[in-house]
């Protein structure tokens, strides 16, 4: 099964093909980086002076705001501003990296020298191209009219209060509610020694509710959250604060009635959305190209081979508008593409960043990601999902005599050797093709090669 929340398309935002040290997109105020392209070029040239093959600089400016409400009051708000740059030098498959949040000329110089220390040989210095191609996003994966950062604080406090009372008033057994609002905006500028200069701006908003229900000495908690690369209008149209609050409360109340999960092997049906978590753990991480080229991933030699059921097709798409995992350019300045990982059970591709695609002689897929400027890029998933199958969801449940329907997963983990787990926070027993009692806290464990073959039906 797979589910999409599709956002209504807005008119594409045109990128201008001219150069400034700032990001210009309609709706977003330009943000200045405290350095010019010529300073960055000079730094790149210095970084390559010891014989590196490639160098890039990643500049980041990130602002965020969070608001917390509990015990009936808005307790705290926090704002953070973080900026810095990371410089990478690559020679063959070796990466040298240095970062700083001090933009002074001396610091730029020392960063270039630290990162190029891996070369330490007197190779010929590679020349930078004379002209740099400067790119801004064409069209935009962010979907907003009311950018959170430019709206007054009162409006956000209102969302928080509404979610809080919705959860609190849902049922008398709700004893405690916590609401967290978070917004952030990350502006990046990537410049590399191949003459690329790219900027992207990535806003995000999130509203999360946790509710605790208590009855007869038993206590359970429920969660719900909504948001993405969207504006505040999302909480009017897609998911209202009331909906998020009530869902969290509903889950807490349901869990009060839940029984313990039975131990042992059984048929598992994953609800919409959650099949993505399965695939994230069972497949996604193992098709990230760094694990593949190092041959630590169990799937490294499976390209073109049948590893799963023919029902199964898996894609990773960083270009779905409004999704939290989406971006216009990756953290290496590459344009991302929707990538087929598995089609009809056959491994068809890997998630690539610049280095892996070069070492493996494959096309880059625009999956070079980093947490922030302190990290060098690695090929990582964006929005990974299982493509629609041919079955009706109800038909799937009807086909199971005895099993577990997973309603909410809280995460999972995988080892390169293929063993993975995921944690079920809310599920239902399936008995004779019908959903039965709710089930609390359980851990599912398996081996990915086994599981992929055992996928029987896709909704």
């Amino acid at each position, binding site marked *: 099964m797979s589910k999409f929340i599709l956002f209504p398309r807005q008119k594409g935002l045109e990128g201008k093909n001219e150069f400034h040290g700032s990001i210009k997109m309609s709706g977003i105020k330009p943000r200045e980086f405290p350095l010019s392209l010529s300073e960055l070029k000079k730094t790149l040239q210095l970084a390559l002076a010891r014989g590196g093959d490639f160098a890039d600089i990643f500049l980041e400016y990130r602002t965020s705001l969070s608001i917390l409400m509990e015990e009936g009051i808005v307790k705290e708000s926090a*704002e953070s501003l973080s900026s810095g740059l990371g410089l990478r030098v690559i020679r063959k498959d070796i990466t040298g990296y240095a970062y700083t949040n001090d933009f002074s000329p001396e610091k730029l110089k020392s960063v270039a020298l630290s990162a190029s220390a891996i070369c330490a040989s007197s190779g010929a210095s590679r020349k930078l191209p004379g002209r740099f191609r400067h790119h801004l996003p064409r069209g935009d994966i962010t979907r907003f009219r009311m950018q959170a950062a430019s709206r007054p604080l009162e409006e956000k406090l209102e969302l928080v209060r509404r979610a809080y009372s919705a959860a609190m008033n849902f049922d008398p057994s709700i004893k405690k509610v916590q609401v967290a609002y978070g917004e952030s905006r990350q502006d990046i500028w990537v410049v590399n020694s191949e003459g690329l200069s790219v900027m992207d701006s990535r806003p995000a908003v999130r509203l999360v509710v946790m509710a605790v229900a208590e009855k007869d000495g038993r206590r359970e908690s429920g969660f719900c959250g909504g948001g993405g690369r969207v504006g505040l209008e999302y909480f009017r149209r897609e998911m209202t604060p009331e909906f998020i609050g009530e869902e969290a409360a509903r889950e807490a109340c349901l869990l009060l009635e839940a029984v313990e999960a039975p131990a042992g092997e059984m048929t598992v049906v994953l609800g919409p959305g959650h099949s993505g978590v399965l695939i994230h753990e069972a497949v996604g991480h193992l098709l990230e190209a760094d694990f593949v080229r190092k041959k630590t991933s169990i799937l490294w030699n499976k390209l073109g081979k049948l590893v799963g059921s023919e029902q199964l097709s898996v894609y990773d798409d960083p270009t779905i508008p409004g999704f939290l995992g989406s971006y216009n350019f990756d953290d290496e300045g590459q344009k991302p593409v929707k990538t087929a990982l598995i089609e009809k059970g056959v491994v068809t591709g890997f998630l690539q960043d610049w280095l892996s695609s070069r070492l493996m002689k494959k096309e880059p897929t625009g999956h070079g990601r980093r947490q922030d400027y302190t990290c060098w890029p690695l090929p990582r998933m964006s929005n990974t999902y299982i493509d629609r199958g041919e079955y009706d969801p109800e038909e799937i449940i009807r086909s199971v005599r005895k099993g577990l329907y997973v309603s909410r997963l809280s995460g999972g983990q995988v080892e390169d050797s293929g*063993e993975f787990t995921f944690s079920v926070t809310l599920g239902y027993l399936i008995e004779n093709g019908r959903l039965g009692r709710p089930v609390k806290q359980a851990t599912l464990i398996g081996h990915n090669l086994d599981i992929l073959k055992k996928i029987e039906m896709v909704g």
Partner: protein
Amino acid sequence: MKIEENNNFRQLAERLIDYGRAQGADEIEITFYDGREFDVEVRFGRIENLVEASSRYCFIRIFKDRRAASASSSDLNLPALRTLIRKTIKRASLSQPDEFAGLPASAPFKIAVDSLKLYDPEVTRMSSREKIKLALETERIALQDKRISNSFGASFVTNELKTVLVNSRGFSGEYLQTYCNLSLGLQAGQGDRLVEDYWFSSKRHLRELDSPEEVARKAVERTVRQLNPKKIKTSKVPVIFEPTMTSWLLAFLFTCVSGTAVYQQTTFLASRLGEKIGNDNISVIDDGLLPGKLGSRPFDSEGVPTQRTVVLEKGILKNFLCNTYAARKLNLPPTGNGNGHGVVPNNFYLEAGQFTPEQIIKSTREGFLLTRVIGHGLNPVTGDISRGASGLWIKDGEIAFPVSEVTIAGNLGRILQEVDLVGNDLQFENSICGPTIRVAEMTVAGI
């Protein structure tokens, strides 16, 4: 790579505090962090990644009419920080008054920072070349073992961090600390039947770090012992936790005794203070003053002096661990565990017992020796535990065969009552740590 002594963070902090007061803040706290990092990763005898870096941050907390707001910035220029302070005061006025909000009452810390031995000049003096050699050597030794089929690489990391904290109640303190970590990850097995594990040593002082031989030997041993695992039938058996496994169990206990979880009622231990919640084998301490240990520090993030706090004494729940806010909410003393908005452990450990790990295994007729867990099935509201696991099956006091793809399930409350043997192998490789323990009975779910 020594942090320059002439960075006058204290003076800057004092100017910002004066400015904040003048702009209308009742109370204000300024913290500066200035850090250096070195990280080398080697794989198959070559450097794969090398990082050298520095970063600085300023954290600001403000209270006005019992309303709280905070901010952080990597831009340490005076005008930028002043702007941020003005915005933070304005934001504070939009939250709601909270009678428990505010800075801690000033309490001078009595210990000399130097006596904590948090800083090792050897770590900062060590050359890049020596650091790289250490990582290369560790991996080289491990790869001599023919059972090892692949390497995730070895890494050596060093950190140096300066913390400066000044607040408007007259607190002013600073300290320097170092950290170093040597680690190695390995894979063994053929085809689709692969196993993996790692080992590490982390310390504040270079001379206390385990040798490359020691780290390599442990990493190899931990990896190959999992080869050719079997599946087992679901059963209820004694479960032995290795020290790294006791650590996560204790981390879960920490969550459940943190003052924040207590006032939020998100822990099953919320109303149990003074009760016997574990058996006589369970004594748990939080101590911020152990010289040279990873979790030690002279004062917490709010300037509250750290201390030795008995959390559980022979199974009796003696204290919750509180930052200033949680302490006021619960009408308990703060324990020097503050960290930003939350509560963190200092050195949080289970006191060692008298048995060697070998004796514990020997005395187990049939059981499961837990060596690895994956997944996150921990629920502090109920104490329920459910995690993916692998380990070794024990039969007649001997290790019989490796076991994979099981889940272990239990409840922290019941586990604390059922720990029947405690090992003598307590090591402080983490800020949360414990020795080998045996739990009399848990469900190990297999096929």
